[in-house]
């Protein structure tokens, strides 16, 4: 992190690596009402679809009826003649970006693939794959025009599962596809795009040391992030070739870059304003609409509004991967886990990019296992390309690993939390992917879970309790912030991170804490790409951490300016002025100070800004090399109806290390929200496919997310083991909560029924059949 001068009287805890913070916060840890809350409870807050411009056209995608087909020709002439239609586009209207078969750059971004997701070029690769778009004065006219587009298809057999993709005679999605990465080499035409291996120690020796071995094959299905707001944007391509975009996105700068690259435009001409966003969870990081809307707007010479229907969200945006996993653990009879062998096969959808790598990195990293191998494979199938979904990959791998650890505990007759405590990583231990952990809170979280009242609550017939753990490494990435002082002594904080869960309020809290003023006097705002310095996406559980760092940094610079102004007013040296509780204070007994009380409030200094040097503004940018991993442990009590297989969740508790909870209400909210998504994933959520590769349940009626009556109150415990990399000890909290629930629920159901479930979702027919087979 950048070296901000330390001018606060409290000792900063950035250098304190003992994990203990002495700092007493005045506002951090309080629960002010969020600044944007009023607009959200009155309906005034404007989300992606709430914007329009005079003359705006409606843009609609035309989508493939085939899961796998070559596009031989597209004829849009009839569509263009429909009254009200102002533009029709296909991939031909975008510059040709070649596909590459190896990852480009550190993030493995393949712009050729990204472009083909927007509009298919040579092939359609999933049912619902967009291959054209129409802008018209009404939505109905655009849809009618779409139906008049003539396409000559060469229909190909679809690949609809991992097994099908790996079969000897499997249809190959991409000619020329090679497998990148380490691991056993794969020859010839393949649907495996990538292999990743993490290894350590000696696997054979490890297993031969083991007194007990548990193993299993686990399968999960594609599930969707399920945000309630469908994707939406408004694009205005102006007469001077500049482009204005309003869209619901997790990263305005990402949209700017993608639109520039995919449309062949100069990024400098593009301004993106992020609107309020109705949920993302990773799914609103990819760009689906804006490049097409930009070209439509240019062609039509009018603004274009594009919104997805709910059906399009399910058919045409990225869910997360389905998987097949083989996991084997070896342990000594005293409970020490000595060996682990995992193979994770993940569906990438139609282009490479599943989170199998992150799954390999997180799956068994909470445990000290000296001999291990994790082999992950990214496999393409004729389904929508997957997108990030909250701790991508980790919930899936942890489902398998934490189920097996539960099996191990049962076989050894050990308490499941004690077994985990025995094998838990601590500071200094190495994660499976290499780096050593700094101060972490895994053991603390385990102990707190064990002490929680739910762990001792009475269980009755057909009821069972499950425990599971998880972690997410959290991201750093780049952020910028600007803080300025207003003439009345209030402050404005500007950052570029769309606010998904209350981060604006947390930015205001951090600025207010540093300045020593009430958080109500700090106005946080999320800027567009012209108003703020570069910010990476809102995601990776990084905003409170990294953007918070930038805010603190910028605020500390402002404080330096304020001290300097006070020094000017008092005509003293800068180092005889300190900042305490919102005031410049004279110290060191300087007797030359003429001010009557030896202190000046922020308000008083602000009034004199003009006379003492002008406006006070400071900016900061950060790119922290690492963040602080967050560990969580969940408890779940279920009741399973043995006659119907229906499961009810009776009690649920999330225990998680937040480092330092800036706004505890929002931290609790992340814990509860992630748990709820995981419960839905475990019990009822899954994409259902017909034989032709069409999603059968593309609506909230049959894609079954939890409803209010499905869940109990979700208890939360915030553990705080400060992260030394952040001035306040913050760890990201947003993603870890979704990592444990799949196995937590599965372990609870195993306790309730005696049956180990290896596949998700554990829906009633699956459960009933398993119960009947077990008899």
């Amino acid at each position: 992190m950048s070296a901000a001068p330390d001018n606060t009287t409290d000792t900063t805890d950035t250098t304190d690596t003992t994990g203990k913070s002495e700092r007493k916060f005045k506002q951090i840890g309080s629960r002010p009402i969020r600044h944007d809350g009023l607009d959200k409870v009155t309906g005034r807050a404007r989300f992606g679809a709430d914007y329009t411009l005079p003359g705006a056209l409606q843009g609609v995608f035309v989508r493939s009826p085939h899961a796998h087909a070559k596009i031989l020709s597209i004829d849009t002439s009839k569509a263009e003649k429909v009254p009200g239609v102002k533009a029709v586009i296909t991939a031909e209207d975008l510059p040709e970006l070649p596909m590459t078969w190896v990852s480009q750059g550190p993030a493995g971004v393949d712009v050729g693939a990204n472009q083909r997701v927007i509009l298919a070029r040579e092939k359609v690769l999933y049912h619902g794959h967009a291959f054209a778009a129409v802008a018209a004065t009404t939505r109905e006219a655009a849809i009618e025009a779409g139906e008049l587009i003539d396409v000559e298809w060469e229909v190909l057999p679809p690949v609809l599962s991992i097994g099908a993709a790996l079969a000897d005679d499997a249809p190959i999605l991409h000619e020329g596809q090679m497998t990148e990465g380490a691991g056993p080499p794969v020859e010839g035409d393949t649907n495996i795009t990538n292999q990743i291996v993490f290894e350590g120690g000696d696997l054979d020796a490890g297993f031969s040391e083991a007194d007990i071995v548990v193993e299993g094959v686990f399968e999960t299905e594609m599930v969707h992030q399920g945000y309630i707001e469908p994707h939406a944007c408004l694009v205005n391509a102006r007469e001077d070739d500049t482009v204005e975009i309003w869209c619901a996105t997790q990263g305005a700068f990402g949209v700017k870059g993608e639109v520039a690259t995919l449309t062949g435009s100069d990024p400098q001409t593009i301004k993106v304003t992020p609107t309020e966003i109705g949920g993302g969870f990773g799914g609103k990081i990819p760009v689906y609409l804006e490049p097409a809307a930009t070209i439509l707007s240019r062609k039509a010479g009018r603004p274009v509004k594009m919104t997805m229907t709910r059906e399009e969200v399910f058919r045409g945006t990225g869910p997360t991967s389905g998987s097949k996993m083989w996991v084997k653990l070896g342990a000594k009879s005293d409970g020490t886990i000595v060996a682990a062998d995992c193979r994770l096969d993940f569906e990438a959808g139609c282009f490479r990019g599943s989170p199998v790598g992150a799954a390999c990195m997180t799956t068994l990293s909470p445990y000290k296992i000296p001999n291990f191998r994790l082999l992950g494979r990214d496999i393409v199938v004729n389904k929508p390309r997957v997108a990030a979904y909250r701790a991508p990959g980790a919930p899936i791998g942890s489902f398998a690993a934490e189920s097996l650890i539960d099996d191990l505990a049962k076989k050894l007759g050990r308490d499941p939390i004690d077994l985990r405590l025995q094998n838990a990583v601590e500071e200094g231990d190495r994660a499976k992917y290499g780096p050593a952990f700094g101060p972490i809170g895994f053991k603390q979280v385990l102990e707190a879970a064990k002490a929680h009242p739910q762990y001792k609550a009475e269980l009755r017939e057909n009821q069972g309790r499950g425990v599971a753990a998880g972690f997410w490494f959290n991201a750093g990435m780049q952020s910028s912030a600007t803080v300025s002082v207003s003439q009345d002594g209030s402050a404005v904080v500007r950052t570029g991170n769309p606010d998904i869960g209350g981060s604006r309020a947390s930015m205001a809290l951090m600025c207010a804490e540093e300045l020593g003023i009430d958080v109500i006097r700090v106005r946080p705002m999320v800027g567009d790409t012209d108003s703020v310095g570069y910010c990476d996406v809102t995601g990776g559980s990084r905003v409170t951490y990294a953007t918070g760092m930038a805010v603190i940094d910028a605020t500390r610079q402002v404080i330096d300016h304020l001290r300097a102004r006070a020094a000017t007013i008092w005509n003293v040296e800068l180092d005889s002025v300190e900042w305490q509780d919102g005031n410049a204070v004279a110290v060191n007994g300087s007797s030359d100070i003429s001010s009557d009380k030896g202190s000046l409030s922020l308000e008083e200094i602000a009034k004199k800004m003009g006379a003492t040097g002008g406006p006070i503004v400071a900016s900061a940018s950060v790119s922290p090399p690492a963040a602080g991993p967050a560990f969580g442990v969940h408890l779940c009590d279920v009741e399973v109806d043995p006659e119907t297989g229906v499961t009810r969740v009776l009690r649920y508790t999330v225990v998680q290390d937040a480092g330092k909870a800036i706004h505890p209400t929002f931290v609790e909210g992340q814990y509860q929200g992630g748990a709820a998504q995981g419960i839905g994933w475990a019990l009822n959520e899954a994409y259902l496919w017909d034989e032709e590769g069409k999603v059968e349940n593309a609506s909230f009626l049959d894609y079954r997310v939890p409803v209010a009556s499905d869940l109990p109150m979700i208890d939360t415990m915030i553990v705080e083991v400060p992260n030394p990399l952040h001035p306040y000890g913050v760890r990201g909290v947003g993603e870890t909560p979704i990592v444990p629930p799949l196995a937590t629920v599965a372990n609870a159901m195993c306790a309730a029924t005696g049956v180990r479930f290896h596949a998700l979702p554990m829906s009633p027919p699956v459960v009933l059949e398993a119960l009947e087979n077990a008899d």
Partner: protein
Amino acid sequence: MSAPVSRFEAPTEVEAAVALLAGEYGARVLAGGTDLLVQMRLGAGAPALFVDVKRIPRLSSVQLDSNGLKIGAAVSAAEIYENDSIRSLWPGLADATDLIGSTQIQGRATWSGNLCNASPAADSVPALIACNATAVIAGPKGERRVAVEEFTTGPGQTVLERGEFVVEFEVPAPAPHASDAYERLIPRTEMDIAVVGVGVAIELDDAGAVASARVVLGAVAPTAIRVPDAEAALAGSRLDDAALDAAAAASTAAANPIDDKRGTVAYRKKIAGVLTKRVAKTAYVRAQAR
């Protein structure tokens, strides 16, 4: 040629509605719209003419007397469930009505829509059949009555002819010592279409044994179906285990479901039996209390 635009009419008399429906091939009745408008969004396209029947006073009226209930076809599910008399006289039918969708959907859904949409999984239909309800139909040739049990002939298919629509339902008053119950199985706690639905009405004799029973299954056949063998198994019994097991087995045997995204054949057949037992018990206990 731009996309056709629907017309909208809201007649205030039955005859006017009949004329509109008979006079236009693409005319559709709009009661709550919770099926019609959803189908429109999912690809069926907008009808040429919406005939909103909710402004016809007869279709909103609720009359209760010693013969039973006469209720307009456009009364919302929410209003039906809020009616204390209906809930106490036909608790199963009220429960079934309350299960049609969310609170918001309840504010719109109607028995007539539920019946005329003719989904095999409609929640109110098994309960209406268990209660021996009759649909009153108005059409170009006048009015006729059709037992709800005979109304649907297949998924999406009813006995309605061109120009006809349901104006009223008649539900006979339950005998003394008679009551009904309805339950359905869904994977979540709310919001799902029934995987299996079972409606049972039971009448007791003076000695407290089952004089007669009506057992109706939903979502396990092309239409809701009565299970005569289950009814026979319950008749004369006090719902001892043997009677209940026989009734359950009869329901399992009678169920003729499909595999679909909501349930498999095997699962549905099993659950038909499980629910038959549970619902019969509830109806029996309620009948004893009357």
